[in-house]
């Protein structure tokens, strides 16, 4: 994967075939998770995206707390609109190619990719030790897939922020 700044200020992401396939899988999973109501998400994921920690102590209770969580969900539903655009412009699964991200979408893309990292870590209750590359090499099955996605997206986020 190579990421460069385009003349318009956006980003051009050059993807190899397996990378475009992985990214499509990520964006499709994220699309579904954004659509899901906070109360229906995996509780560990909901805790990371829509956590209530500290709300009660800050006096945010009842209707106010509901409004707080709804606000967080609305932001993610907004990101879902951009996800739809990105899925259309992403090279076909398994095909190498360039993927262009408009300048105004870069912040949303970075936040969305980070959301997916949080989601996958939540699904497998991953802690600091689990996130080391050595732990990924030793992992198996679905947990390994989650860790590959987490590390791939970390690399992508770093490249997007460097440009």
């Amino acid at each position, binding site marked *: 994967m190579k990421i460069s700044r385009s003349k318009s200020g956006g980003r051009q992401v050059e993807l190899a075939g397996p990378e475009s396939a992985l990214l499509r899988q990520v964006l499709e999973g994220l699309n579904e998770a954004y659509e899901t109501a906070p109360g229906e998400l995996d509780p560990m994921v909901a805790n990371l995206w829509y956590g209530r920690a500290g709300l009660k*102590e*800050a006096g945010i209770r009842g209707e106010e707390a509901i409004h707080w969580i709804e606000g967080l969900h609305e932001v993610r539903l907004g990101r879902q609109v951009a996800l739809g655009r990105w899925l259309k412009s992403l090279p076909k699964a398994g095909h190498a190619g360039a993927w262009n991200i408009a300048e105004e979408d870069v912040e949303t893309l*970075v936040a969305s990719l980070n959301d997916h990292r*949080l989601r996958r870590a939540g699904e497998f209750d991953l802690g600091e030790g689990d996130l080391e590359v050595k732990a990924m090499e030793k992992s198996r099955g679905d947990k390994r897939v989650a860790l590959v996605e987490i590390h791939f997206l970390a690399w992508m986020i770093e490249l997007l*922020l460097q440009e």
Partner: protein
Amino acid sequence: MQAATTPPPEVLPGQETDLSEAFAKGWRVVVWNDPVNLMSYVVFVFMRVLGFNETQAQKHMLEVHEQGKSVVAVETREKAEFYCHRLQEFGLKSTLEATAA
């Protein structure tokens, strides 16, 4: 000629307290450490949401990383809530604390 005077609005004792509380910078926004968010991402969010320059953002990110938390703003209730919510929109663990607490 004498200007017509309008009597000042009546302020009840309770209302006075509410107003002073609303405008007092009595709320801390705290960001907590977590194992998933990248250090570079946290710096990026601090710059975008809180308007920090890179040096300030790095300093607070390192506080979060090394001490487990960092107070990133001391603000009025309304502004503190805004910052706290924005940080959560980006997936950071943030809470509000009264400075008197």
